[in-house]
């Protein structure tokens, strides 16, 4: 083979050392700041950490350990790297279409609906849900709790101001998702931004909540947590699913990301499929 065994040995040593550094970093952050990334899925955690190492002008993860422990501002920046997710309005439009068709009719029979959007990031999907509920005439009896680990993204979510450049995609998603109005009626364009109607967040509570370390805070009829759990390892996914179960009313609806599945977790037998393809589940026990 082309590689000398000695070279492979070096590579393995380096990889082992890197794992030790990642463990030390996450342990230090947990002990000092209380954010718990110890059970994050390793390959993507590793990529995000290295991105921050280079962005801080450092060359090793050990260097980043010293930096973030002594400089809270660099911790803030790392936190942004570790928690921001790509999101869009009506992301995976068929998910929202299916929600409209299969879940909304059930919600209509409830006097009051509590919805938890866990890991809402900058809030695009929260506004999507609000639009959908307004169009279905349900919004007035709904309360949406939109939470994220990161205060900075929550501020963006609260503002309801999104780049105008994303509106073309959002509009197309809105239509595919079964929107029955005109998407541009929901916002005012100002310079490069779209400012969404304040009425959309009238019944939304934005709050910081950490899925890894915080407890259940209410009971819900609907819990959305989309493309958040993919960043967690199996043990942590199980723990968060237990948290959702504790927070879920009987026959409540769980909505996951398109490529996430409950069947690999410990709570699989507590839910049945509402729609297999769209990863919508109903709690049945």
């Amino acid at each position, binding site marked *: 083979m082309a590689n000398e*065994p000695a070279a492979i040995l070096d590579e393995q040593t380096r990889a082992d050392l890197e794992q030790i550094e990642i463990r030390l970093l996450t342990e230090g952050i947990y002990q000092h700041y209380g954010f718990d990334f110890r059970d994050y899925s390793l*390959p993507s955690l590793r990529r995000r950490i290295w991105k921050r190492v280079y962005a801080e002008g450092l060359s090793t993860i050990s260097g980043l350990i010293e930096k973030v422990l002594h400089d809270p501002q660099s911790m803030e920046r790392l936190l942004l790297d570790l928690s921001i997710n790509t999101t869009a309005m009506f992301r995976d439009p068929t998910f929202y279409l299916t929600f409209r068709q299969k879940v909304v009719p059930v919600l209509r029979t409830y006097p009051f609906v509590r919805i938890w959007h866990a890991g809402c990031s900058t809030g695009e999907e929260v506004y999507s849900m609000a639009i959908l509920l307004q169009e279905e005439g349900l919004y007035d009896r709904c309360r949406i709790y939109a939470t994220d680990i990161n205060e900075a993204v929550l501020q963006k979510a609260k503002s309801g101001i999104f780049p105008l450049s994303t509106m073309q995609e959002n509009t197309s998603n809105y239509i595919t998702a079964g929107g029955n109005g005109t998407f541009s009626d929901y916002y005012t364009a100002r310079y490069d931004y779209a400012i969404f109607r304040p009425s959309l967040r009238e019944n939304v509570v934005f709050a910081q909540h950490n899925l890894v370390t915080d407890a259940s805070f209410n009971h819900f009829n609907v819990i959305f947590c989309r493309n958040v759990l993919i960043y967690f390892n199996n043990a942590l996914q199980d723990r968060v699913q237990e948290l959702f179960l504790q927070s879920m009313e009987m026959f409540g609806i769980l909505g996951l990301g398109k490529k996430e599945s409950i069947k690999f977790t410990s709570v699989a037998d507590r839910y049945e499929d509402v729609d297999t393809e769209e990863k919508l589940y109903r709690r049945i026990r």
Partner: protein
Amino acid sequence: MTSAARKMPSGIRSWSDGRVLKEAVRRYELITIGCSMGGMHALQVIFETLPKDFAVPIAVVQHRYKTSNEGLPQFLRRHSQLDVVDTLDKQWIKPGTVYLAPANYHLLVERGELSLSVDEKVEYSRPSIDVMFESAALAYGPAVVGVVLTGANADGARGAALIKKRGGFVIAQDPKTAESPVMPQATIDGTRVDRILPLDRIGPFLIELCRSSNP
């Protein structure tokens, strides 16, 4: 396992200085394939040659449009005797199965399972071949095979270099047989690949290479 034990490359070693005298038979545990423009046809040609009992699992990143759906898995199912799945997060890696990176997600390899991410695009791509190769190299070291097929960009070149660095095996499609030669050429330029093969030889070669890996 202690880290010392993991550091030992397998094989017969000299008791005096630890040199590897004779390398153990390699066992490949995972094949990773990356392709872009022209990749559907290339994958078809390869999968048509792989028999039903080809046990080594295969992970595939084919660049695809972000709203593409079941089209790619359905197409490959028609041309493969292996199970072809659009990967779900934390799905176990099982023998005899082809795992496709879903549209608009990165596919990351962990030991025994696959995970997904929606992190930003890498070189304009999500899924990114480099991201899959890199994670596979870290998780499987010398037990991984990387295959770079046709494509119009350089994705995969960095990841292939890491697979080599970690002791794995890299195959590049002969650019002359590629619908778009840029991608395999970038890999060939960037790293000392183990084999450069015309498209129709890749499937048979994988069968040969993995013969000792098949249980």
